[in-house]
């Protein structure tokens, strides 16, 4: 079979279709699943194709639906619970952190809730502080949770499938700002999530830019502009934030001697800080040409005003500028 054209949203849809088609124990529950607009184009008509008993739109109960997905997983199903905005998922944190993440270890490996918790970053458009957050670093802090952030069209489909087929609880974080991204995808090949991790998307030698999710696309676009200035950036996409394997980062920074960590979260105790610490622990000081730099959100909740929103989020220009400074400034 030849490749076909997808965007990030339809790639997610293709992932759902693959799972629902091939695995009768897969079902999906969450708010908005019978609505044509709640989750972009990522789940269109799944309810019509697979039935309302497998695509379950729920009451406004993040906590109970997430707990129910965990319970169903313990009973042999492979549920996917969908939170159309990550901010609302905070109601479900007991289910995610105390229950899903802990049951395997707490019961000596006898219980494994193979649940996928899909959490969508949905920000911008003057939606303000409670319709904007990306709390991936919180979740990556917790042992027992796998945290996945697809940044590419291929990963949107393939990491969703790998997440649902994984025996562990997985928080799968996709970003509405990526849904229009396009690519050609080959037919599905199922992967084991345990084998997936940070990946070099662009080779370079002057500096290493590490990012995840939407920030990875910023980094790739910035790298394109930097190349026209004669700066060669290597871009590494984290993809799997927990458990975090920094080896690809270490290899890259050993070569480039410069590290820029870009993150769509806040700096304190955040993913960019974890990236830098993990690398600096393992790269010889002599190999570093400059101190590492992180680029993240201002340490404030997201604003509502459009004028402030424009300067709140990292952009291709701010990534490019930070990278240029890291390479050219003495």
């Amino acid at each position, binding site marked *: 079979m030849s490749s076909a054209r997808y965007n990030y949203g339809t790639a997610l849809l293709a992932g759902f279709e693959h799972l629902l088609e091939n695995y009768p124990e897969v079902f999906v529950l969450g708010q908005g699943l019978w609505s044509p607009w709640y989750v972009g184009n990522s789940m269109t008509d799944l309810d019509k194709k697979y039935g309302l008993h497998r695509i379950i739109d*729920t009451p406004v109960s993040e906590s*109970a639906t997430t707990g*129910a997905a*965990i*319970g169903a997983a313990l009973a042999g*199903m492979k549920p996917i619970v969908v939170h159309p905005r990550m901010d609302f998922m905070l109601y479900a944190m007991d289910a995610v952190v105390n229950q899903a993440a802990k049951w395997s270890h707490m019961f000596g490996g006898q*219980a494994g809730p193979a649940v996928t918790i899909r959490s969508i970053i949905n920000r911008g458009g003057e939606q303000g502080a409670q319709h904007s957050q990306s709390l991936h670093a919180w979740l990556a802090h917790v042992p*027992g949770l796998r945290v996945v952030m697809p940044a590419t069209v291929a990963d949107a489909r393939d990491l969703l499938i790998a997440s649902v087929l994984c025996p562990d609880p997985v928080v799968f974080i996709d970003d509405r700002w990526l849904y229009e991204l396009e690519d050609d995808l080959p037919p599905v090949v199922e992967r084991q999530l345990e084998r997936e991790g940070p990946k070099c998307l662009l080779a370079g030698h002057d500096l290493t830019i590490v990012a995840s999710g939407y920030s990875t696309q910023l980094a790739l676009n910035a790298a394109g502009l930097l190349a026209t200035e004669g700066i060669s950036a290597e871009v590494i996409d984290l993809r799997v934030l927990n458990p975090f394997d920094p080896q690809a980062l270490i290899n890259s920074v050993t070569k480039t001697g410069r590290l820029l960590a870009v993150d769509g979260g806040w700096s304190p105790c955040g993913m960019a800080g974890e990236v830098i610490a993990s690398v600096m622990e393992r790269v010889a000081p002599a190999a570093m040409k400059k101190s590492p730099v992180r680029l993240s959100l201002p340490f404030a909740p997201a604003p509502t005003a459009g004028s402030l929103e424009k300067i709140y989020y990292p952009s291709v220009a701010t990534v490019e500028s930070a990278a240029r400074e890291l390479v050219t400034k003495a």
Partner: protein
Amino acid sequence: MNDWSLGHLADPARCWEPIDVAGQNPESLLALLKTMLRIRQAERCLAEGRRNGQIGGPVHLGVGQEAVAVGVATSLRKSDRVFGAHRSHSHVISMGTSLHRLFAEVLGKQVGVSRGMGGSMHLWDQPNGFYGSVPIVAGTVPLAVGAALAAKMQGRGDVGVAYLGDGAVEEGVVHESLNLARMLEAPAIFVVENNLFASHMHISLRQPKAATARFAAANDIPYEIVDGNDVLAVRAAATRMIDLARAGKGPGFLEAVTYRWYGHVDWREDIDVGVNRSAVDLEGWRKRDPIARLVAGLDAQGWLNQAQQVAMEAEVTQEVALAWSEACDDGDPPPSALTSHVFVDRKVSTP
């Protein structure tokens, strides 16, 4: 009780009479009695182990509440999915969990039901239908709804059971779970052991009405409120409710009114027992002892004489003592257990 008081069921001076066993099968009643005795003695053993320092972690004991789990368990099968909470020794013992492995778990030993990683507050025995207990109040309630939903999807007539206390109904997730179970028509049975206390706080200080079944009514779920110290009343209500759930009639809510003789945690009766708890009340509730009342009922029918009762107690005593001694001799988990099973240990193929 349409005013949502519990009436005589919450009155420590009432319900002392022998259980009416007329027309019942003596053998099945003796089995219920023996299981209640096993729970009582196992918990007495844990109380002593905690008092003398052999047990390092907290134990939440349910002495006085044995009839609830035993009454419910008679209608359960191994393929059902039962979830508990912090006070769940009775739940697992009623479902057939090995006393040895339960004790080993409380002692943090490798052969424990949770491989020594859970202790008293995190119990697991899926082969017997017990899917897990946790001490986050109401933490397992939505899980039971999901396991019930799975049972419905799997089409085998199994049910999910959530054991919770009167304190748990003060958690928001319980209300979400009741509504969700009703809307999904999940075969979920909510068993509220209403012992009138959440830790130290009497229900009158926490809720405007004592009957938690009012939340079932609010969510259009059928409910029954029973004397939780009458094992036959619990059994009858549980059977009706579980049969309906198996037949596809959706969730049910069973409120069993009972009382714990010990404080919230560990072996003492005199501390941490709370506001509004008096020695007089405790004495009254001791007279409502679910075991003594069943013994009296059996005796009245001539189905259990003094000698038989003594023999049964001796047999259970010996069983408990043997299990405890075996558990004490068991080994600790290896140091590697500290970081094992954080993620599921699946065979990962090479590329």
